[in-house]
């Protein structure tokens, strides 16, 4: 099945056309600067050819139309006819409490997403615009795949915050968790590699990109995750603070007379790696400084790794032992230093890293624990679009039956 996956932001649309039988990309690309002067569309084919063009794109309908057009263009296109597209899979950030798995998109689903906007005011509106635009242009089944869905199995005692319960009833304030598609993909894939049954395995998956989160997984289900009501909670991230004493922000707001917007920015855009280092939000820059002996970079990396280590410890307790720890995403796949630092001194828990192997693994699937380590440590590159495409194909073929 040929599935077009769409990831719509407020001014961008990222897309991939995936052949779900061979699990290969037919085309990838993006539209940028929607509604602005200098909007552009990019198409990359698997042979490495890339086309970038400036075009007038005023909204998501025009953006998706431009994607469809360029894919069938005689010289640069990858399809003869748009009818070759069997289905569309949409990435949707927030499914709220309604969606515990990927769903076939109907008018009712779109309405429910609209009702959930207040939970993800930045992300869900462009996701919905993308869905409506695609529905207007293509007459094929569409599926929504939610970042939150994989975590819908988290038990109540883990997702309810210890604040007045009426706030959960009134505003649905609870832990939702994010990066679910990635956690699901890499944990399943790790089981495949190990020849283990995903439905019968305890694992910790550690997604370390610009945003970062961890999940405790038991028998194929997420039972806890570090991100919460929003993607701000949990690990130290590129520019987000992760866990802090909530009283700190009230204190700073009082002292600096900050508005809500400024306080929000402070925590989401000026904190984390950028905030501590004062120089960059990119771990690659910090590692370079670290190896050059920079003191502040040492502090950043120590804080970053320590936080992950604390979560490993707590998830170890939650799961009563862990068969496998999986690292993924930009930093998780490419930084032997971070992997080593956050696993340091965990031998007594049965987590033993093969340092030499770890140093050699960058951006590829591998087992990096020693052969006798009771807990397997792995690196698995994430592929969220593939999950979206596979979920879409599965739901659509079930529907056709």
């Amino acid at each position, binding site marked *: 099945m040929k599935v077009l996956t769409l990831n719509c932001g407020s*001014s961008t649309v990222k897309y991939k056309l995936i052949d779900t039988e061979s699990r290969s990309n037919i085309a990838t690309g993006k539209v940028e600067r929607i*509604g*602005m*002067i200098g909007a552009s569309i990019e198409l990359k084919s698997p042979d490495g050819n890339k086309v970038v063009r400036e075009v007038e794109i*005023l*909204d998501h309908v025009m953006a998706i139309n431009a994607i469809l057009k360029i894919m069938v263009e005689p010289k640069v296109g990858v399809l003869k006819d748009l009818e070759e597209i069997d289905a569309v899979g949409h990435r949707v950030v927030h499914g709220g409490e309604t969606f515990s798995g990927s769903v076939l998109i109907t008018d009712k689903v779109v309405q429910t997403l609209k009702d959930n906007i207040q939970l993800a005011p930045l992300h869900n509106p462009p996701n919905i615009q993308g869905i409506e635009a695609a529905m207007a242009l293509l007459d094929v089944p569409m599926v929504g795949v939610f970042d939150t869905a994989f975590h819908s199995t988290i038990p109540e005692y883990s997702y309810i915050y210890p604040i007045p319960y009426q706030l959960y009833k009134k505003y649905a304030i609870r832990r939702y968790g994010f990066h679910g598609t990635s956690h699901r993909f890499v944990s399943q894939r790790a089981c495949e590699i190990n020849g283990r049954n995903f439905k019968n395995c305890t694992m910790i998956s550690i997604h370390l990109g610009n945003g970062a989160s961890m999940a405790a997984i038991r028998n194929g289900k997420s039972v806890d995750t570090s991100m919460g009501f929003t993607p701000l909670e949990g690990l130290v991230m590129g520019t987000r603070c992760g866990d802090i004493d909530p009283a700190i922000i009230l204190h700073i707001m009082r002292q*600096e007379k*900050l*508005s809500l*917007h*400024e*306080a929000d*920015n*402070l925590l989401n*855009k*000026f904190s984390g790696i950028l905030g501590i280092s004062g120089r960059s939000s990119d771990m690659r820059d910090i590692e370079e400084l670290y190896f050059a002996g920079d003191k502040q970079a040492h502090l950043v990396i120590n804080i970053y790794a320590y936080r992950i280590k604390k979560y490993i410890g707590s998830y170890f307790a939650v799961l009563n032992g862990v068969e496998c720890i999986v690292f993924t995403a930009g930093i998780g796949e490419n930084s032997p230093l971070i992997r080593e630092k956050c696993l340091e001194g965990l031998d007594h828990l049965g987590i033993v890293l093969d340092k030499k192997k770890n140093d050699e693994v960058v951006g590829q699937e591998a087992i990096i624990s020693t052969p006798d380590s009771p807990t397997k440590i792995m690196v698995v590159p994430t592929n969220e679009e593939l999950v979206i495409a596979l979920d879409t194909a599965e739901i659509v073929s079930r529907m056709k039956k």
Partner: protein
Amino acid sequence: MRIQKIGVVGCGTVAEGIALNIAHAKLEVIMYDETENWLKDGLAGIELTIDNEISRWGLTPADKKAIMSRISTTTKMRELKDVQILIEAKGRSLEEKTKIFMDMEAICHDSTIFMTNTTTIGVTDIQKQLMFPERIIGLHFILPVHKSIIVEVIKGIHTTEEVVKTTKFLMDTLGKKSIEVYEYPGFVTTRIIMPMINTAAHVLLEGLASAEDIDRAINLGYNITQGPLAMADEMGIDVALTYLDSIYKQLGDPSYRPCSLFRKMVREGRLGVKSGHGFFKYDKMKRRIQNG
């Protein structure tokens, strides 16, 4: 209507704020004024505002780059010919505003919507001289423009509903809440706030309390984020004086008769934030110097 490009006439404090607000809302903006130097100062003012925002985490350096890339300037009026909306924040009198719009009518498309930032000058009075009076509407932004979320929208007698609708849509896009008001001196915001500012100046002049304490009393006593004297500094002491004079002249209400302190301060060049000294003192970054 899909709005992509907006022209701003003027590059003073209000015009700077409007241009910044538009660019922050991801729309292109072109600022016009008569001299390169004024425009340079205008751009520097916008950068300073953004830097201040960055220093208190309101904006990021990446936001600054994106915002500045969307603002262009020109000293040639005809370069505004293709804008869909033109916002004037330059003319200080009815004559100056009318002249600007008459010039713009000769340059812009007939469909361009004209907006004028006004506090006390009537929109209908400007409309009298124009070929297409129905396309002009009044706006009243509150300082600091990029932070204040209220805009008063003032319909002139000839302004069409279509223009009102587009204006409200634009204000939504800029993240503003608009309230429609009738043409009347000072509209709602200035009309209500100026007697408080004027009275605060009288209270200071009469020696009832220090400037800090007067502001603190109103600020904390009534949960108003800024005290009246700090508000006057932000507005510009000369501007506050003009507002009071104008409303007093039009309404004859003595609560608008300007406190003599305003004239004294203007004579001394104590114009508020913009001159570094008003009721309070400010540093080069326009930040209040405590106990100053």
